[in-house]
Structures are given as structure tokens and as C-alpha cells.
């Protein structure tokens, strides 16, 4: 119902719109999915903080009517960590880009997952550096064209979801800008999960990526996402050979990719025990 009544509009700073993203950009889809997930969770504008890094994606914080923090390139997760530890009652959402999260902020990302602070990190993955005009990112596919890889990228990309899981994130999911409802659902599940939740949303950047990589229109890019994303249950049913073929074909699973089985203590709950122990000990 929320979608039909446009009740999510109250979460935007109408006087800050229109946004600066290019026509056809996928960032707006992901930003809307975040506020819809917030609404679904019943979080309020007063008890939710949006923290972002630097990049096109990170400009989202400025349009969202909460306490919002536009930090420095790569550093959103440390700032968010400080906010959450100082005021655990606040819900903290991080918006970040693929360069922001996985290049300059890569170490913070790993240690954020390891530390397991109760944050929801949403990566707007457009496979390129949008803000600076289309340089290669750690998510640019092999052979992909960018202004700094005019002959095709020879840097291997990595999978941020694998990384998040390996580093200890307690909730890991992926979706795409084509799968709007699914994306909202993944983000909402991440918000509901206590501890470090990571959601990769693949978004199209026709201006800086598509035009250089034979997908000049947003529709073509969305179609690519539709044709390459495979729902997790279907992905799990693939036999080995089929899965290999899919991977070679750049297909990837979407859905909840990892969820900690036993509820682990998030950092804040663990730190409460530290406080108890410290206060029990005589000086």
C-alpha cells in the first residue's frame, strides 16, 4: 500500500530536490527503496541517521529528511560506528558507492563486518566511479571500459558480498535496480537483522558506464540486470556445470546470501557487558 499512497515522500527533503543524478541513473531507485524499508521497519525520522561517504551515491543523504551525515571519501562506516556506539538507540544506515566502500574504504568495510556494529550498509554498486566522471572501480568487470581503462580493465573485480560474509557480516544480501520490490525487501531484512548488515544493490550508470560499454540507454542496462540476476533459490538449484556456465556468463545470485545462524552479540550488546565487567571491578 505504501507505494500507492506515496507515503514515502515525507522522508525526502522536498526543497533539496531535484537531485543531481543524471537522467536514467539507478541511485534514485535505491534511495527510494531505503526509505520504503525504513517505513516498513517503523523507524522514524527522529531515530534514524543516514551516513554516506563521497560519490554520486553518497549524495543521497542530502535528500533524505533525517539527521544526515555526508562524510569523507571512504569513511562513512567509521563515522557510523561512532554514532551507533555513542547513541545505540539510533538506527544507523550507511549509503556508499563501490569505490567508496571497496577501494578507499575497503579496510573500514572489512573491519565494520568484523566488529559487527548494528549498522545497515547499502552499497550502490554502479561498477564505476560516477562522481569523478567514469574511472575504473574495484567492481568494474575485467575488460570493462572506463576513462582510466581505455583499453579494457585488467584489474580483477571482487565480490563485495563474499568479502562481507568472510569478514563476519551477520546479514548479506544482493539486489538490483530492476528488482525494486526485492531490493526494498532485502534492505528491510537487513535493517531488521541486528549486527552488521550489508546489502549490495546493483544500479545502472548509463552516463559513465553504459555509454562506454555498449549499453548506452538506461533501459538496456536494466535489461542486463534482469537477464543476469538469478534469484537465490533458483541459483542454489543449479548443478555445478550450470553454475559455472552462469558465472562465465556474468550471471549472479540475488537475495539473502548469508545470515548468521546463531544470533551473535552485536558490538554494542557486547560492549554493555564490558561496561558491566568494568564497573564490577574495583579500581
Amino acid at each position: 500500500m505504501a507505494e500507492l499512497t506515496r507515503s514515502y515522500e515525507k522522508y525526502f527533503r522536498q526543497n533539496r530536490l531535484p537531485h543531481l543524478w543524471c537522467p536514467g541513473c539507478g541511485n534514485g531507485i535505491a534511495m527510494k527503496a531505503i526509505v520504503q524499508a525504513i517505513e516498513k521497519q517503523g523507524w522514524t525520522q527522529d531515530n534514524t541517521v543516514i551516513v554516506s561517504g563521497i560519490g554520486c551515491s553518497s549524495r543521497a543523504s542530502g535528500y533524505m529528511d533525517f539527521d544526515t551525515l555526508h562524510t569523507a571519501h571512504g569513511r562513512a562506516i567509521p563515522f557510523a560506528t561512532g554514532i551507533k556506539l555513542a547513541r545505540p538507540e539510533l538506527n544507523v544506515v550507511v549509503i556508499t558507492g563501490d569505490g567508496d566502500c571497496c577501494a578507499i574504504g575497503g579496510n573500514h568495510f572489512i573491519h565494520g563486518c568484523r566488529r559487527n556494529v548494528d549498522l545497515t550498509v547499502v552499497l550502490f554498486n554502479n561498477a564505476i566511479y560516477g562522481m569523478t566522471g567514469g574511472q575504473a572501480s574495484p567492481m568494474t568487470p575485467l575488460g570493462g571500459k572506463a576513462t582510466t581503462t581505455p583499453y579494457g580493465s585488467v584489474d580483477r573485480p571482487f565480490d563485495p558480498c563474499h568479502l562481507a560474509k568472510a569478514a563476519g557480516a551477520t546479514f548479506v544480501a544482493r539486489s538490483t535496480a530492476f528488482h525494486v520490490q526485492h531490493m526494498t525487501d532485502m534492505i528491510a531484512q537487513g535493517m531488521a537483522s541486528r549486527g552488521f548488515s550489508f546489502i549490495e544493490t546493483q544500479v545502472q550508470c548509463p552516463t559513465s558506464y553504459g555509454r562506454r560499454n555498449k549499453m548506452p540507454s538506461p533501459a538496456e542496462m536494466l535489461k542486463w540486470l534482469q537477464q543476469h540476476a538469478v534469484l537465490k533459490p533458483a541459483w542454489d538449484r543449479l548443478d555445478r556445470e550450470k553454475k559455472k556456465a552462469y558465472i562465465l556468463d556474468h550471471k549472479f545470485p540475488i537475495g539473502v546470501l548469508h545470515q548468521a545462524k546463531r544470533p551473535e552479540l552485536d558490538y554494542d550488546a557486547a560492549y554493555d557487558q564490558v561496561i558491566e565487567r568494568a564497573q564490577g571491578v574495583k579500581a
Partner: protein
Amino acid sequence: MREARLMQGNEACAEGAIAAGVDFFAGYPITPSTEIAEMMAKLLPKQGGKFVQMEDEIAAMGAILGASLAGSKVMDATSGPGFSLKQELIGYAVCAEIPCVLVDVQRVGPSTGQPTAPSQGDLMQVRWGTHGDHPMIALSPWSVRETYDATIMAVNYAERFRTPVILLMDEMVGHLRENVTLPEPGEIEIYPRRKPKKTRAEGYEPFEPDTDLVPNVADFGEGYHIHVTGLIHDDTGFPVGSAQVTESSIRRLHEKIMRASDEIVHTESYFMEDAEYAVVSFGGTARTAYEAVKNMREQGLSVGLLRLLTVWPFADKVIAELAEKVKGILVAELNYGQMVHEVRRAAGGKCAVELCGKYNMKSFEPVEIEAEIEKMVGDVEKGGRA
């Protein structure tokens, strides 16, 4: 009165921070500052505060800035290599006006340098390390007790001016052990977190300057829905591309501190009443300079000591007055020569200004400073003014 306690400078810093109301500390271990983090890890949870060891100094800086925006009083301690890493976010804190205290317990540099050896080589980095135009407040204590007081002062200035304040320590004071008697909590003045003076309905703008040019930025979670950014922004907090706003915000960031500089600049004079010559020094080196000056006085030389507790903003007026009074100034600092340039500038050619520098891992011996005083006096008396 409390009992006297044997305490290390770094320990006094941690205790001072807690007394000043610091309830959040993020850090990354580095000699010779590590004891501060270790003390905070032990003391903070007892007070219900939090300590977090981050993955590097940049992350530590980010975490304290986030916590500060969420209403905590915050501190972080490091040494040269870590301090270098923090520079971008120090500028962020200046631009976004986020109160925070950073302790730099200096070591010999550049680079990894000499990790456990004393130095005062970060004086200029403290002032100019982050990019762009910005003001800076930095305090450099010379004793264990003063470290306690200066830490409280640093936290108070950070809150009052909503700016990063640097406690520029050195290994000599950081690892010095002295018997100190700390004040009772009631004797300590604490500057509270600034609060909005308007509601949203009344048109509250988070970065609107108050009469002291400092904005009353709401903490996160208070229902104000503020936006904080390191982009140049107007009073609403949102970025603007305007030339006028850029100019006025850079000017205000400087002026909010410079207009209070007479209050912030703390100096102390010893044996200065009739002095014909002066030594200017700061931090741990000022202790040795004091011994040297005292010895020279006993030998009948008319020399005094001016010690700067506040190293930034620089004590321009005090130095200008001093230069009018004396025939020569010797700047004693444990580096290749940094403060000497500032003293020369402020002295404006009114008297000779000479450097007494050292950078060989060892702190000064009084005789070394005494020899340099004698040399300066000899040169000036010969008419060989520098």
C-alpha cells in the same frame, strides 16, 4: 584536597579527559602515545563511556567525529605517523565544525622516524597539516599536572568553538612521572555541549552563527534532521556553490577563533622583569630552558624565559612586546627549527632571534641551552645582530 599521586604525563591526559567529560575515545596504538589509549580503555567503561580500538588512525578519527555528532565529548591520541593519516578528517572537523580533541605525542620523524625518541617536530604539521585555509588551536603542556589541566582546557575549547583542538605533547612530558595533586571534580570548569536556541518551527538553522560566531549545531537524534557535510555549506548546513558563502564561511571559521585569541593564548614568563635576553620555548623543552635560564641568572646574566602553553594560535602580541623589550631571543625547540620562524615573524626585526634546535633523539641538557644563550649574547653585544 586529594592526595598526591605519582603519575605519568600520558596518564594525566587520560584522567584529564575523563574529568572534562570525555565519554568516547577511539584510537589506534602508537608509541609514545599508547598509554593514553590503554588508560582510556580501562577508565571509560567504568564511567559508562566507550573505548573502541579502530583499524587505523583514519577510522579512529571518523569514529570520534561520528560520536561527537551524536552528543559525546570525544578524544583520540596518536603520534606522528598516525597524526599524518588523520589530516583529511581534521579538516573535515574544521569545516563541519565538530568538537574533538586529538592528542599528538610527538616522536622523531619524518616517517616511522625514531618511535621512542623525543621530538617537537610536529609543530608546523599541527598548524598546517590538513589542506586548505583553516585555523587551529594547539596546546603544549610542560608538566604532568599541566597535561591534566591542558586536556580539560582542550576539551572545553573544542566544545566552545566547535573545532578540533590538538594537545601537542612530547615524549618527555608524556613519559614523565611526577607527583601531582589533582583538583576535586567541583573545582573543574566544564564547557557544556552547545544546544540549539530555536526550534525547527522557529526556523532553526544548524550552522547559523551565534554572537560569538560559533553555531549551535544540534546533536543527532534530537529531532532536528540536520545535514552535516565537509562541502562548503551555508547556515542550513547544505552545500552551496556560491562565492559569497564560500568566502564568508572560510572567514568565519578563522574569526570565531582569532577574535578570542587573547583568551586562548596562554603564556608564562619566568625571570623576565628586567631581562635583556629571553629564551622562548614550549612543552618538555621549556623545562630544560627553565633550568638553563635559572643557572644563567645565578651567574648574573639578565635572561628570562617565555613559555608558550598555547602554540596555536601563535602568541604574536606577546612575542612582539617581548621583542620591543629585549636585545635577543633564543628559541629552544627539539627540532630542526620550526617555531623560530614564527618568532622571527612576530618579532618583526625588533631584536635578534636565534635558534637553539636539536634532533638527535635526545632531549636538551641545560648546558646546551646555556651555551647557545652565551653565544647569542656574545653576538649581539659584538653588534652582530642576526
